[in-house]
């Protein structure tokens, strides 16, 4: 154990920091769940890629830098520290990307990853279907083989980014006789293909952060299949592991929220201290963000030495989603009567984006598998408790 960065790691951090200082937009971009914001975020992805920071863990040939997971964490730390824009292509780079790296053919990697890194192709995820949310094996959308193509029919929902994205990925039932997690195939589908209809779903803040996708005999070539036919469940489980696990919610995000929360508390100390539990809650936000960071470094070190992520990705999911809720609830309690005000509205001076963050944090315990499901997984797979 040696909890200090190497000189090379320090140098990498300095390079990232310098580039971000030069390039991060001075003003926050509008939400990527608006048309303009989406476009501006896509531009930002292009710029990131110009600095070769699109996805630093990928091989150089595919637009990355071949960084290991520790360097990835350093990159993320600098990224959040700089207040850089949220990653509009997170479904691509954090979820599909690692899956492609593991299950994709060389041709698929070369076809998809570079355009993912540049933001030229933005990805939506297509995990859920009506009545198949946390129960992903209840998939009913089907893909029927027809020569060199699959013909896809059915419906996906809760597809984040789908309103303006270019592609989606998901699992489809290729064996009509199959049930549950057998007979499924992982397929990549362009959202501009004939037969695809996207219906935006307005979320709590009114913006269309997700959508339903309807497939009406959509033809996609067999090359768009990731992994073997019928093995889609395994491919999807790997992707979901990435989602719950290391990539999607990097600790830097929560450390920066905790830092801002400490600042908010210090700036509003007189009002905040009327409730003595606020100080403790703020202190705990810092402790928990640290714990999450330390845990992530421990996992990353283990993975670098050849370990695998197991059921602890479920403990991660619960921990960060509850931390995120707790931090934002604490912030709102510090803001008191101003907490209900939207950013930039009259009387909300200086309140910032805590309300938006609070609303977003409400989704944390639900997506990527509800926390109830994660607790089942922990109990049954990590602790070995009897199945129902």
């Amino acid at each position, binding site marked *: 154990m040696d909890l200090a960065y190497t000189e090379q790691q320090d140098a990498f951090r300095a390079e990232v920091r310098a580039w971000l200082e030069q390039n991060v937009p001075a003003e926050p971009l509008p939400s990527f769940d608006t048309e303009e914001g989406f476009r501006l975020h896509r531009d930002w992805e292009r710029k990131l890629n110009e600095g070769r920071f699109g996805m630093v863990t990928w091989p150089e040939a595919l637009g990355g830098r071949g960084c290991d997971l520790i360097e990835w964490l350093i990159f993320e730390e600098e990224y959040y520290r700089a207040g850089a824009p949220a990653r509009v292509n997170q479904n691509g780079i954090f979820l599909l990307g690692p899956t492609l790296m593991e299950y994709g053919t060389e041709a698929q990697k070369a076809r998809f990853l570079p355009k993912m890194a540049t933001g030229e192709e933005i990805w939506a995820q297509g995990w859920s279907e009506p009545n198949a949310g*946390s129960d992903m094996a209840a998939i009913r959308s089907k893909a029927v083989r027809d020569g060199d193509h699959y013909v896809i029919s059915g419906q996906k929902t809760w597809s984040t980014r789908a309103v303006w994205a270019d592609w989606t990925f998901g699992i489809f039932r290729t064996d009509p006789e199959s049930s549950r997690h057998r007979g499924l195939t992982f397929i990549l589908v362009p959202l501009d293909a004939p037969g695809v209809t996207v219906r935006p779903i307005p979320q709590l803040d009114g913006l269309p952060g997700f959508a339903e996708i309807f497939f009406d005999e959509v033809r996609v070539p067999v090359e768009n299949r990731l992994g073997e036919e019928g093995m889609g469940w395994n491919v999807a489980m790997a992707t979901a592991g990435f989602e719950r696990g290391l990539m999607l919610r990097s600790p830097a995000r929560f450390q920066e929220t905790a830092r801002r929360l400490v600042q908010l508390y210090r700036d509003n100390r007189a009002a905040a201290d009327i409730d003595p539990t606020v100080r403790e809650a703020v202190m705990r936000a810092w402790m928990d963000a640290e714990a999450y960071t330390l845990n992530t470094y421990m996992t990353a070190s283990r993975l670098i030495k050849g370990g695998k992520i197991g059921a602890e990705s479920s403990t991660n999911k619960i921990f960060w989603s509850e931390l995120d809720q707790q931090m934002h609830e604490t912030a709102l*309690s510090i803001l008191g*009567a101003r907490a209900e005000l939207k950013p930039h509205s*009259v009387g909300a001076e200086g309140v910032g984006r805590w309300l938006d963050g609070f609303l977003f944090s409400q989704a944390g315990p639900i997506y990527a598998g509800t926390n109830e499901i994660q607790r089942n997984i922990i109990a049954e797979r990590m602790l070995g408790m009897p199945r129902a």
Partner: protein
Amino acid sequence: MDFTFSDDQLAFHDSVKGFLTNEVTPEAIRDLWQRDGGRSDELWGQLAELGLTAMTVPEQYGGLGLDALDFVLLAQECGYAALPEPLVETVMVAVPLLAGLADEHRQLQEHWLSRVASGEARLAVGHPSNPLVADAHIADLLLLCHGDEIHAVPAQQVQLRASESVDPSRRLFAVDWTPSDATRVAGGESGRRLQAEALDHGALACAAQQLGLANRMIDIAVDYSFERKQFGSAVGSFQAVKHLMANVAVKAEFSRAVLYRAAFAAARGQANAAIAASHAKIVATEAALLAARNGIQVHGAMGYTWEVDLHIFMKRAWALDGAWGTRGFHKARVGDFVFADGAPLGAGATFEAR
């Protein structure tokens, strides 16, 4: 000692509940959100017709001369319906504030309270615990605090700047106005007392609505728990989902008597009315906030959308959390009471002597 409502109180509650169920539906609320100003004169007229705007107006001004205890069940139902119109604040805060002015303002009281009772005029209250004034845009008369003074300011004499709440039903305004001798209706000791009472009444009004909101969110989530299927079963059949709702039910259940006691204390002007109101606001708010959190969880991703009705009620609960004193403020008040020398604690100390 009798901790039950009268048959009259219960009967009026039933009829108002019926009205709200039929008229103030989620669809009606979504419709109001689309309107400029977000309010409906027709609906206000109906509420007045039911006698609701007249409830706490003294009989001498054409009102019913009732009190917070008579209205608390109705306030709960207004929360249950997430009624956007400011009925609860009008009846529980604005009218008692105006009616509480010294005798020299009888003419002002008569002029406005009789019109409030009949539904012809509306009031809004600007209080230091709320940085903005709710429903100032539809008020004919604004009761505005200034230092320890209270001013009665006609709508023509104020300028409004609209803000925006997370709850589209809330309409909040910064009010620009100039205090003058002509508008001042209270100051000094009596101004402070009236402001303090307004805060307690406001807290009680929020508490009642929060408990109603908590119950509504339970009902919505329980209904949805039959609809949403996962792993081939209604999600409501899973024990973890059941317990999410049971935990809310416990919190809501144990807010009820606290709320009703606070209403009783307010109605009788008891010495413990302020502490009772704070207690009620804390626990009812917590019940509503937990109902929101667990309600989303029962809904799954659907709970995060604008499409299901849950958010109408969640957002109201979040918004009312900070109104009329934050939980921090109210907890501090209760703490000061509990930790004071000679505080009446322990068995037998709950109720004031007659």
